[in-house]
């Protein structure tokens, strides 16, 4: 795919590294008790998120899921506010009110990472409708998993986007499992992409471990959307290494051999090999990895040094105007 390395290929590798290092660090400090709540990691799926987001402009919209850490990093978000959010700090991207399932950075075009499965799909259709009504050429891309395609929201959002020919790209990151239930037990079609036929929508199936392949597929979909050709369903065949949520006891039983098989096609390993083959010096990639590791360490330090929100902040952002604080919290 890549004839020779360029800034764009290096940027893809850098963003995948950022996600992997961010997730490794998050998992470690979660195990140590530093992150409250559940942690849904994206390791293994990096090529899917980065390949899709690199095909977007900065001002295009993106909606994601409870597995929310990879998407903003893929779209170019800064790491400090993301890590601070995981620790529940006021400097977090959501001021400490969203946490692991909601790392949504609106400054890079995000319109939410939502934890009710499938619920982002109508929202993305609506953002695309907004672009259409405003007469601009911004597109809206929505990430969701294989499990979401059994939700009514998926079918309603797909239908609306198709019937109104909206500039939307639906990216199903098919990692094979809805929590612990294999897609084969929950989806009657072999490929999620087949579901697009019901909406007369073009569909593309792509190797979700290959960042260049994902980029090419999503680029085709984005061009169609931007030029008035309507929505596309892109299915990335990918895999998450961790359980549905980490450190919560084994939700999946004995995936051992399967995980090892998928690790042989690790998206970062694959892409590093491709870059080396194309003539990039190993030292360059190693230096990049060190920079990313430093960046993640800096983000964690920032998060640790940051303050928690004040109790009164629980009453901000319900509405545009702050709600009054009840007596039992002020006495």
């Amino acid at each position: 795919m890549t004839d020779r390395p360029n800034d764009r290929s290096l940027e893809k590798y850098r963003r995948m590294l950022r996600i992997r290092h961010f997730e490794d660090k998050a998992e470690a400090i979660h195990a140590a008790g530093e992150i409250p709540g559940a942690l849904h990691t994206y390791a293994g799926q990096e090529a899917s998120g980065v390949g899709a987001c690199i095909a977007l402009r900065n001002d295009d919209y993106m909606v994601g899921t409870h597995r929310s850490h990879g998407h903003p990093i893929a779209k170019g978000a800064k790491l400090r506010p993301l890590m601070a959010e995981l620790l529940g700090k006021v400097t977090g991207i959501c001021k400490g009110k969203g946490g692991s399932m909601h790392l949504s950075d609106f400054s890079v075009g995000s319109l939410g990472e939502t934890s009710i499965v499938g619920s982002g799909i109508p929202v993305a259709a609506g953002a695309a409708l907004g672009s259409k009504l405003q007469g601009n050429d911004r597109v809206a891309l929505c990430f969701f998993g294989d499990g979401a395609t059994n939700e009514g929201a998926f079918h309603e959002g797909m239908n609306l986007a198709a019937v109104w020919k909206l500039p939307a790209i639906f990216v199903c990151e098919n990692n094979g499992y809805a929590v612990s239930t294999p897609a084969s037990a929950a989806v009657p079609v072999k490929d999620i992409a087949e579901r697009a036929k019901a909406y007369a929508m073009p569909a593309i199936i792509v190797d979700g471990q290959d960042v260049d392949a994902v980029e090419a597929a999503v680029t085709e979909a984005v061009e169609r959307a931007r030029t008035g050709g309507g929505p596309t369903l892109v299915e990335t065949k990918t895999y998450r290494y961790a359980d549905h949520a980490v450190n919560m006891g084994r939700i999946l039983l004995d995936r051992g051999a399967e995980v090892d098989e998928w690790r042989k096609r690790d998206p970062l390993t694959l892409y590093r090999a491709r870059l080396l083959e194309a003539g990039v010096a190993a030292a360059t990639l190693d230096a990049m990895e060190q920079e990313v590791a430093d960046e993640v360490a800096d983000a964690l330090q920032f998060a640790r040094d940051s303050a928690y929100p004040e109790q009164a902040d629980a009453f901000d952002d319900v509405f545009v105007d702050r709600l009054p604080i009840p007596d039992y919290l002020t006495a």
Partner: protein
Amino acid sequence: MTKATYLEAIRQAQHEEMSRDPRVFIMGEDIICNVFGTTTGFVEAFGTERVRDTPISENGFIGAAAGASMVGMRPIVDATIASFLYPAMDQIMSIIAKSRYIYGGQARLPLVIRTCLFYGNSNAAQHSDRPYSMFMNVPGLKIMVPSNAYDMKGMLKAAIRDDDPVLCFEDSTCWTSKSDMPDDPDFMIPLGKGDIKREGTDISVIAVAGAVPLALKAAEVLAKEGISIEVVDPRSLVPLDKALILKSVRKTGRAITVDPAHQTCSAASEISALIVEQAFDALRGPVLRVATADTHLPFSPAIEKALYPTVDRIVTAARTLVGTARPVSA
């Protein structure tokens, strides 16, 4: 000043705001064919991009309204009948109510979901809901329940200009009632500001939506018996004009809450609790609720209508509160 009905007030508010602001658009089921008369002439005025018929897909198009509002549009969703909100609970409760909060204020969702309280006319249980109190139980949604055409127009215009999501419940029993309409194109009534619809001294009747006209009729009957009723119309349930309600109860010392919704966990229940908690010292008797009994609404007119609040039930509650021993004036 010209008179207009409640339905015409809705049409005027939408028309004026769509003319004023190109970000405002309307979508819903059968908008173009204009089922209830609130979009008369809209396609001719605004075109089919801004006046959109939707598939029967409430969760889809209500979610799409959320997405469109997040990118700078100001959608009005016409959800026809309040029972049709249930398929969209996912989007209303998890996306619309919570997006601003869970993203730490990054999202803004200026949208209005309009829907009709379609009860009292043999539409059976699945079309007769008055579900506003369910939505009071989740923070993040403003809720308006206007009881006359004047309030409807002023509040709907304010709702369309509001930067928070607003649910507008339109009581079909008020559809044909008329009010004088101000000519001011910026005539607005802010949400959260209640209204004393009739002043009185003996009992505060706090009535919701279509219960307000009933309370006013009851007040006339009771006036002839020497019982002076103050009718308080909160007009919006979120925000709720607690100060106005409590001030009235502190003056009269007695309260009846009237609500067309099912009694359990109704707006009437919440308002009653507010009064008991915050004005107990002023009360000279129990706070009574006049609401709809906790059964479904049957189709047959022989047994439907008596289930709702009526003028008679309000009158009876008022007589109970002041005591039967009170002399009746001639």
